[in-house]
């Protein structure tokens, strides 16, 4: 079958998609966007998290056909041109990245949290990210990174409002 998607702002058409294929497979294997990772393929780890119409989903659990005509945003689309989003910067700065395999999914999930909640509490962060498993970091530095990015984002927003 044929699937139309808007991925990271670009319209894409993919042909020859098999009915059982996941969105994750289409992104990784057909579109050359390997940022979202396949670590379990059954919705248990969050490594494949992407935005679908603005909501974070496990791309391994979404059938490609379900995504037809919808908007997808992956880790490759978080930066604004060459400018990293504060959450990407904070992950590097705080040491929240080790092997990096969980990172793309965590970034999308954390991005959503910050954009939605602004400055989440520690409990909110731990809860929101509980579906994204990381085997390396022990999560403490991820927590730090989310706190830092949220604070910077908040400051930037206030700054913008002040100027306007």
């Amino acid at each position: 079958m044929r699937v139309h998607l808007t991925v990271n702002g670009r319209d894409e058409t993919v042909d020859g998609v098999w009915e059982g294929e996941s969105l994750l497979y289409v992104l990784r294997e057909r579109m050359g966007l390997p940022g979202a990772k396949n670590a379990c393929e059954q919705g248990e780890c969050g490594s494949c998290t992407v935005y679908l119409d603005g909501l974070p989903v496990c791309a391994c659990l979404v059938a490609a056909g379900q995504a037809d005509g919808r908007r997808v945003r992956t880790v490759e689309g978080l930066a604004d041109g060459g400018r990293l989003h504060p959450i990407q910067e904070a992950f590097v700065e705080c040491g929240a990245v080790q092997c990096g395999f969980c990172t793309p999914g965590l970034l999308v999930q954390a991005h959503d949290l910050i954009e939605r909640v602004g400055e989440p509490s520690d409990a909110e962060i731990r809860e929101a990210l509980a579906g994204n498993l990381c085997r390396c970091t022990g999560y403490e530095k991820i927590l730090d990174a989310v706190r830092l990015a949220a604070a910077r984002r908040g400051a930037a927003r206030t700054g913008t409002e002040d100027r306007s």
Partner: protein
Amino acid sequence: MTAPVTAGRRYAGAALDRVEGLDKVTGRAAYAADHRPADLVHAVAVPATIARGEVVQVDVDAMLKRPGVVAAIWHGNAPRLATSDEELAVLQSRRVAYRGQYVAVVVAETPEDAREAARTLRIEYVAEEHDVILRADHPRAYRPENVNAGHPSDTGQGDPDAALAAAPVVVDEEYGTPAEHNNPMEPHATIADWHGDGLIVHEPSQNVSGLRATLASLFGMPPGHVHVVSPHVGGGFGSKAKTLPHTILAALTAKQVGRPVKLALTRRQLFVATGYRTPTVQRVRLGAEPDGRLIAITHDAVMQSSTLSEFTEQTAVPSRVMYAAPHRRTTHRVVRLDVPTPSWMRAPGECPGMFALESAMDELAIACGVDPVELRVRNEPAAGPESGLPFSSRNLVACLREGARRFGWAGRDPRPGVRRRGRTLIGTGVAASTFPALRAPSSATVRAEPGGRYTVRIAAADIGTGARTVLTQIAADALGTAPAAVTVELGDSALPPAPVAGGSMGTASWGTAVVRACEELAARLEAAGGTVPDGGLEVTADTGREVRAQERYSRHAFGAQFAEVGVDADTGETRVLRLLGVFAAGRVLNPKTARSQFIGGMTMGLSMALLEESIMDGRFGDFLNCDLAQYHIAAHADVRDVQAYWLEEEDPHLNPMGSKGIGEIGIVGTAAAIANAVHHATGVRIRELPIRLDKLVR
């Protein structure tokens, strides 16, 4: 004596950001499974559905009639490999040694065709009775010649039996740890591609030089004809250190079909043939004076291995190092079962062994009425308790004292089961950590360009540890330049050979080679008047002689971990409220990456204490809980407060950086600290991990 380790350091010790961080947060970092060579076909390994027996026939012909199927390979039509190692002899015999062993592989144009083909491939077996359950009294338990890392199986001094019989205070208990799976987030995957008589393998590997050598010998080629590419590895914790069957299967399949082959294991397949931590049954006996001073220590460990090879973990070895006692004995026994071969998982040996020893020490503290921190201090040895060798440095006592201070241990009421906040019983516990500080020979090349840039080349691996970053800092110091002027290339077997990222000896081994190459380069540049010739200047160092000639010392990192737990009085649900570790591991080269290593290790220890257990199904002979829904690892919400600190430790007997490995020590002792805290909270002693509700609610 080595030169002082602080000379000329500017960047080692600095909290540099991970140099490949940008690639990882933008999704650009390429892992093995991200490659898509042209003309790729997909292979799926077919697992045996019996635990022991023989494959009689595989219906290859029916399979080849299916649309999209390119090949079906089994012992009957597989190319022959040059090996007598049964572990590596993939598809070389009809024998089935464990359930899930690869007995065939199917190749198709698409992954779904390959999966479907693998599912429907008809295989005829003759099954035999199997035996997959480890017991301490198993009639086939035997004493191996040696245990892993070259340690003797058994050691002893004095007369521990008599000493225990006469000791005023005795602890004599059995402890158990379950099978556990490494579960790095990146599943193993291989892309194998033959070009003429050369083989290219994309594979997440902790040991590209080792993998190259093994593949070359299996396929009867010179090592230079094999190229292993592994720039980023999504975690390994030991599981990506060995050459595994799926890699061989992919290479063999690619050779047979003459096209590049991708063989990506699913999470469920990782539970079969990528290694796991052996279950252990351990008996620890401690005999002491009433003041807690040890008279005797015995530690007897029973582990399992497969019928294919003898893999025996050094479980009781930490008891040879930790505490002073005149009478002592350690033994290892192994049972060869119809199971997959266990392998390395973060701190193999030390981690399960210290759960037993440090739980027993807590029991002794209670039996003697001595504070558990004080008990450990009282039994501090002056030199290696068994080896008699001086310690190159040993700061366990300082770690215990500093940890106690930071944690607020002073004035702790030792009575169990008396602190309650609402429905929650509160308790605290402590345990010691230790891990050897080893070094292996390595080579490295450094190259200077006329513009002031340097490139370090070394077949090391960065599995998330920060190796690339730390080697950049080490090189910058040795060259007297800034890290930004240095590029480190690693994770590629075409680079100068280097040892495994394992045994917490990566940085020590690779760093020594990098320093020596840089020193030599600096000397050559100076001799040439300080100018880099137009064509650049390159120096290669090999540390074989230096490492072999190192003085004899007992070299270990030490640490102390403190835990506070809350246990629901009605449901037994256990939460680790606080975990605090203090470590003494030589010079810390990068506080940012180091803290992550310690905290990551401690969190994996928390996970081990409360969650992790691979359950062997005796009837069918495989692990029952083989995905992340059933094999739980700590998630963000399981972790409340984990803190890691370290002491400045000057040790001139290690390596030019003065560092000890830190990748594994963080997981050693954590589970004991938590189990000890659970006893303090509830009065229930859990001697068999994990600490599950049903063991607490009686």
